[in-house]
Every structure is written in C-alpha cells, then in structure tokens.
C-alpha cells in the first residue's frame, strides 16, 4: 500500500504491543501513518509494531511505517529489504498538501543519502536526526553482517519456540535434530544473506540447497547410514532451512 492510495491521509492508532511481538524481529503492521494526529512532522520506521509503538510514544510524532515485511527499519536496511531511495519515494508518495515540513530519521541513517541539503531531492523538507527515541539507534552502523546474523538468530529463537512441542511429539532425538537444523539454517542464512545478491526466492533456494548438500556430505562422511535415512534427514533439514529463510523475507499483517 502506498500512501497516495489513501487520499484522506488516514492515521492508524498507535498499536498495542504484546510480549510475543517484542521478542521477535517480525511484528508486521499495515504500512501507513500511525499516531494520535497529524502534526506536520514525520518519523520514519518499518512496519514493525514494536518500532512504531515505541517511536510514536517516545517522540510524540506521527510515524510513517514503510513496508519492510514486519522488520524494523534497521533490520530491513541490513537485510536490504529497503533502500534510502525507498524511504525518499515513500515521503514523496504523500499527497502534496500533506507533505511534512520535517522528517525525523534515526541518527545512524546518513541523511545525506536521502539527498538532504541538495536542491533536487527532498526540497524544503527538513531532515532531522532522531537519536534518543529510535529503537534502532544503538545499531552497529558499520556491521551489517552482525545485524543480519542477529535477526536470523532471533528468528531461530522464535521458530524454536513454535517448533519445540511438535518436534517433541516424535521424541528427544527429533527435537534436537530439528532445533539444530533451525540453528544451522539461521547461522548460514545470517552469514550469506548479504553476500548473495540475488532475488529473494533464488537466495532462499540457494541457501537451502547449500545446507542440504552440507547435510548429505556430513552424513556420508561421518555416519554409517542407509541412503533412505540420509535422504529423509536431508529433506527435513531442507524444509527447516526453507522455512527459516522464507521468514527472512518478512511477513504480511
């Protein structure tokens, strides 16, 4: 949804956030404006419920939630789900009469890359840093790899919580193998995500295939197992990896 689709400039109320949303990196909301009322100044965030709620409450600004698949702005930039150009485009998609006079960006985001100060980009819109209130302000700016790895491991944590009971139905061995598969998929995805500059689905397929090959090689070298057993275990790892890497594309509300 772009903001220009919404001529009435509808402002969603500040979302309530629960514990489940707080512990995971994915908490998708409808992209759009959030806040109590339109104040002529905008803070930019991803469409992550926790980020939007925190930002709106702490800064008392109207928050423009971009479609980042439910990730926070910092995570979405690290995952390359959005770019500074996307942010600029979203600001320009606002109706002309409702353009903000000020846009607050997290201080770690270089305002220059949005074209602030130049004649051709945001024009009269003033770009201001928003350090204290932004949840991502403590982000290690130059360590994108660490950020992606952190996102992947938080996804592993959440998926492990969801998977633990169903896996336990099939015994402790299934539980340990299942959780280990998720962890392996998380680490490999976190390490390779930014290195593989392909389309998302190709990247998901590539990472999962790589894990499957690793699994087959490991089992062939280290374990004395039948072909069918190796195939079943590899299929299980492949499914776990596909699921986790699909999560890294984000979710819709």
């Amino acid at each position, binding site marked *: 949804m772009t903001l220009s689709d919404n001529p009435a400039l509808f402002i969603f109320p500040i979302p309530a956030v629960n514990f489940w949303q707080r512990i995971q990196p994915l908490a998708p909301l409808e992209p759009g404006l959030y806040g109590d009322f339109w104040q002529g100044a905008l803070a930019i965030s991803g469409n992550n419920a926790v980020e939007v709620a925190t930002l709106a409450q702490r800064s008392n600004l109207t928050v423009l939630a971009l479609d980042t698949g439910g990730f926070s702005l910092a995570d979405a930039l690290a995952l390359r789900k959005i770019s500074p150009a996307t942010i600029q485009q979203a600001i320009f998609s606002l109706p002309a009469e409702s353009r903000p006079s000020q846009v607050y960006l997290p201080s770690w985001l270089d305002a220059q890359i949005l074209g602030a100060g130049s004649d051709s980009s945001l024009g009269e819109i003033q770009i201001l840093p928003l350090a204290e209130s932004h949840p991502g302000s403590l982000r290690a700016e130059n360590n994108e790899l660490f950020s992606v790895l952190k996102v992947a491991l938080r996804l592993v944590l959440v998926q492990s919580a969801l998977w633990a009971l169903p896996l*336990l139905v*099939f015994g402790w*061995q*299934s539980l340990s193998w299942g959780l280990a598969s998720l962890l392996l998929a998380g680490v490999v995805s976190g390490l390779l995500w930014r290195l593989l500059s392909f389309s998302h689905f190709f990247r998901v397929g590539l990472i999962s295939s790589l894990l499957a090959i690793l699994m087959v090689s490991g089992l062939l070298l280290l374990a004395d197992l039948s072909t069918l057993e190796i195939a079943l*275990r590899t*299929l299980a790892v492949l*499914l776990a990896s596909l699921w986790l890497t699909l999560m890294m594309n984000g979710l*819709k509300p």
Partner: protein
Amino acid sequence: MKAFLPIRLHLAVSPLLALLVGYLFQAGGEMAAPPILTPSVTPFWQVMVTVYEDSPPQIEKVSKVEIAQSIVIRPGSSVIQILTDDGQVLHEQAFDPVFASGDFAVTKLIFMFTLPDDPAAVKIFVRTSQGEAVYDLVR
C-alpha cells in the same frame, strides 16, 4: 521485495511443518538403529562316510555345523538319509561311489556329506551295494 506470507498463516503452518520435520527425523532415526536380528541359521550335520569296495560302509564322524558347504555329488544307487525315530526320511542324498581299477586301484572312498538338521532327526542311515551303516545322533 514484498512479503508474501501473512503472519496468521505463518503461525498456522509453522507447527504443522514442525510435525513433518519431526516425523522425517524420527523415520530416519528408526532406520538408523534397526532392531538386532538373530540370523536364522539352520544347523547342519556334517557326516564323514567311508565306503568300501567289498564291505559295508562306515560312518566315521558326525558333527554339527552352522554353515553348510554345498558339494555336488554324482547321484547313484547309494544313499545317505537322516531319519526320525519311526524311520521317516527327513532328507536323503543319493551318491555313486566309483572304485578305480587297474594300476591305480582304489578300494575305499571317503565322502563328506552335509545334511540339514531337524528337531525330529534321531539317526543317520547309509546304504551302499555292500551293506548299511547307522549312526545315532547325539544332541
């Protein structure tokens, strides 16, 4: 890059997928550790028989073995049998002792037979053109 999976669908599918993954690991594990099977070995009686040209045969040695060595023997009129207490033949094998004559004359031949065991078997019986021999099996 747009997200394509709604969060509610994700929450519904995730445990189902976990069940499938768990099942695959369990199925793989069961195949990895098969129950220990005792090989079904049928024991055999190994019987050494000396056949004489002009006297009845003699059963020299009988021992129980677990691996049978298959030896092709030319069938003939002589026979070795494994019998029950009431004389019922459980297994028999015909053979043909041929004694060479002339400069390399042979007057006795040694045969090694392998006969399948049976709980009902009590004796081994050998019959040639020169006579018979009986051996009572000891278990």
